[in-house]
């Protein structure tokens, strides 16, 4: 009974810590993006709200929370209201299976530093990231606006297409680790990170991950030059903020997945495990921001062609090659 209560308590504490951490990280990832982009563009970026603009995310959040929440006439109210939550929630839930460090031992009790060590952790991540599409597609459709609709359709098509190479690129990882559990996969990288043996899968995964998180050069669902604000054109205040948040949490999650699947997760010399994980996540996120600052945007059909005609065949070949190597 005691162990059970303690287990629940620890879980709640872990949930709280991870939630606050992820939200804070996401908020400050926005700050990092604004500052980093600014430096790429020979500017300073936000520096009035707090020292170095450190309070900028706080200002933005309070602003959005106190802004009017508009619902357009003719919108499908319920779906319109729920869509942003779907995006933010699925992104947040994915963090549940990412191990933040090796198991801790507290008062003789083993505390795994992961919220849920599912034996199908990887599949869980895919399931949720596929669900995230619903937020985009339904939000776009429910807005009763043409730009939103086009954005929603683009989002659905794009995310479904990139789900495939994303998943296929990880099959070799599963083959190497012989487990779907993310904790096990990290364990399997004890000697070397998988990026060294699976560079092709790594590249496919990173490209697909950028497409999943809808960022330049794959930001078609919200391509501002074409569709205004795309699927979230009609959202204001914090509901828009949730889409925004979802996008950045998504970046973190995908950064996290790249870190645990390819870069050895929390493993690293000298520094504490969690710091290593954070560094790896931020490296991936910074890479995505850098890409955004550099590249133009693909066209819809080019994006689909890249996914279906290049990445998927490549991923399949990679699976076969890996399979052959593993068998021998």
């Amino acid at each position, binding site marked *: 009974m005691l162990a059970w209560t303690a287990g629940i308590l620890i879980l709640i504490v872990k949930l709280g810590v991870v939630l606050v951490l992820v939200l804070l990280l996401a908020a400050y990832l926005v700050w990092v993006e*604004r500052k980093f*982009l*600014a430096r*790429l*563009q*020979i*500017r*300073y*970026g*936000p*520096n*009035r*709200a707090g020292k170095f*603009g450190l*309070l*900028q995310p*706080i*200002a*933005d*959040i*309070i*602003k*959005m929370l*106190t*802004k*009017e*929440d*508009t619902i357009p006439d003719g919108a499908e109210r319920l779906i319109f209201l729920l869509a942003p939550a779907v995006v933010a929630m699925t992104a947040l839930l994915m963090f549940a299976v990412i191990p933040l460090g090796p198991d801790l031992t507290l008062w003789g009790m083993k505390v795994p530093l992961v919220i849920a060590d599912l034996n199908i952790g990887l599949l869980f991540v895919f399931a949720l990231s596929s669900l995230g599409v619903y937020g985009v597609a339904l939000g776009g459709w429910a807005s009763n606006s*043409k*730009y939103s609709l*086009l954005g929603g359709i683009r989002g659905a098509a794009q995310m479904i297409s990139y789900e495939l190479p994303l998943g296929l690129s990880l099959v070799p990882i599963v083959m190497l680790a012989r487990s779907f559990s993310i904790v096990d996969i990290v364990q399997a990288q004890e000697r070397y990170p998988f990026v060294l043996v699976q560079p092709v899968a790594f590249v496919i995964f990173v490209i697909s991950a950028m497409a999943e998180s809808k960022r*330049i*050069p794959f*930001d*078609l669902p919200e*391509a*501002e*030059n*074409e*569709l*205004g*604000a795309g699927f*979230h*054109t*009609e*959202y*204001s*205040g914090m509901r*828009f903020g949730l889409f925004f948040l979802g996008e950045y949490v998504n970046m973190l999650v995908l950064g996290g997945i790249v870190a645990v699947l390819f870069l050895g997760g929390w493993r690293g010399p000298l520094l504490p495990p969690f710091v290593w994980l954070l560094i790896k996540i931020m490296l991936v996120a910074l890479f995505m921001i850098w890409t*955004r*600052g*550099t*590249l*133009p*945007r*693909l*066209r*819809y*059909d*080019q994006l689909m062609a890249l996914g279906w005609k290049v990445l998927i065949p490549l991923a399949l070949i990679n699976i076969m090659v890996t399979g052959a190597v593993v068998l021998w």
Partner: protein
Amino acid sequence: MEAGAPNKVSDRLLGVADLVINWSRQYSLWPMFFGLSCCFVEEAAVFTSRYDMARFGAEVLRPSPRQADLLITSGTIFKKIAPIVLRLYEQMAEPKWVISMGSCSNCGGMYDVYSVVQGIDQILPVDVYIPGCPPRPEAVLQGLVVLQEKIVTKERPARSVFHLQGGTQGSQTSILVDGQTKSRDPRGPGMPGTVIRGSSAVPPNFWGSRSDELWTPPARRIQLSEPEQSLAATLKQRFGNAIREIPHPSDMPSFQVEPSRAKDVLRVLKTEVAPRFSRLDDLTVIDESARRDRIPGKELAEGLTDIGEEGSFSRLPQQVYPDYTLVYHLLSFDAPGRLRLKVGLTGENPVADSITDIWPSANWYEREVYDLFGVRFEGHPNLRRIIMPHDWEGHPLRKSYPGRATEMPPYTLADAQKHQPLDGAFYAKKAIDEEQLVLNIGPSHVSTHGLLRYIVSLNGEEITGIDLDIGYHHRGVEKIGERQTWHQFIPYCARVDYLAGAANDLPYVLAVETLADIKVPERAQVIRVLLSELFRLSNHLVWFATYAHDVGAMTPNFYTFSEREIILDIVELITGGRLHPSWFRLGGVAADLPDGWKEAVDALVKIFPRRLQEYESLIRKNPIFKARTEGIGRISLEEAMDWGVTGPNLRACGLEWDLRKKFPYSGYENFAFDVPTASGGDCYARYLVRVEEMRQSLKIIEQAAANMPSGRYVTDDYRYAIPKREDMLKDIESLIHHFINVTGGPKIPRGEAYMSCEIPRGEQGYYVVSDGLGYAYRMRIRGPGFANVQVMPLLAAGESIADLIAIIGSVDYILPDIDR
């Protein structure tokens, strides 16, 4: 906080909440991605490296009004766009603030003209006004800071946020009513005691014109060349009495044609004569009803009298004029040459033959003539308004139509609510049962580069039909040209293509100088070339930035705008202005080059090639950029010539055609430079041409700086020019000329002249008609954008939305030059 201690805990808590909310709001003012005209360029500059609005947390430009907190109305509020501005404002979520940027938005500014609302505050509440025309980027930052202070000190938002009674947030001021809470006097407030000219107490026109007391030599006369004479003979032989050569033209061979034969003559000129005149450069109308020497009530009789009489005093020889004169300007590519054809039309609402089957480009020109003059065209496929709103009454360029907005009934909030634009379905001419999505792109859209509305029919993302609605940026500048004196009009020129600055003063001053035969000193000519090319560079840098942005690359904006700032620094050093220097004068320029100009130019010439190389490396070989532009938006050379496409867009089709080479003006013949061309006529070719043009411009700038001749910066013939200040102070003759030329304006001899220059976007022509007064009788501007944008449906048909945006970026048009 208030002086007295708050007596309740809740009040104190609300006070704290006020502080927190206000603090966060001031640093999170996200502006709407919305621009109207010139001011938006300066607004955009605020976001770039030198000014960096991001410091204040305000760089998050939102294309959707739902997510924006701040509406910066940057530019002129046109009557056609006002309903849309109002709608965007209404779509913004509370709390919202409005900054009115620039004189036009504040009060109408220099555009007291029929198509412009005299201040945004007549339809929206305004929090902060930023003065200037346009305000400098620093002024925009100042405006933002003032708004931040206002939010922090004046607003009590907590009560509204928690749904309690009371509290204030967002814009609170009330809108102004023209004539009641806002002065309707074009001279500004404070002059109620002085009767306004044009009211019943003071007649609108002086009885006599002071210009009539002045003597001028006759307008310039040219001798027709050998081939031109033979052409005239051929036409005479072919059409007999239906065509007459107009004696003593100032600029090009001109003919008067009978209305019934006009179309035949045009067809022959396009297809049969040598050289063929394959381009319709311009088509416009002159309303002849206000000619001062018109014999009233007389039909156009036989012989045409000599327009350029030997010097003219007050007595004008009376002439017969038709009611309207249609004017066609043609251009020959084979042997560079021009030709003018005039057709007299009679009647209140005359009808002419449409020539859309000869030149497809005539389509928009004829619609424009119909819209602004009420002349109808028989056989036109789709004759409807093009510039003015669909429910506009009257034809504003007629002489009988009032020119000023302050002469018309005030434009109110009720007008903005009533005059809504037509639904997109009206433009998409397709059967109802066809399944397609009709999408409005614009008039306010991130990538329309101004106020322009595309109505596209979509099958998925493929464009199956496309129509354009222009006129949202119509500033009535041609009408203004008929009331401002010859010198006063110069500031309006720079605003016709607000990114080309001084470069588009040039065709205007050249046209007047051609007509009045004003000799420009060599130094002034080179200064003009120097400034024109600096502006070509700065324009192409903006184009580079926006084009890259259109295909999704956000960073080149920040890079090229920093070089643009260096160029604008030079412009500022020389002229004192940034976007609109108003620097050229009849007979020269406004002042001599200042100390230190050469060092500044040399520094630019030194650093620029490497920088350009660097920026290009980011874009040119980028596979995504190539995939987005190669083979997209293709137009063939034949089509481009037929549709009157000019400038880099024409050269991207492979034709080496540049007015600076073909009709050298302002001493361009003395410069060594190449005319870059590319083949394919697609978005990538247009990119290549413009980037190479930057290198060539730099070459010209380098030569101009190295070989700047000495001498006067303005002609010493002060009959038309504004005399140098030193002369004006010392010499009585100069003083008299100075007084006359800056007050009533110089008298330009009666006649007409057309002059066209290669401005950054293509060929911009000014057709000035003088009735021997201090201001023009008719001021026609042929903007390159009008023709370049007319081909948009050709370029975009069958492509996707994303391609359309790339095409828009590659064509590089600007709205005031299309709508004028």
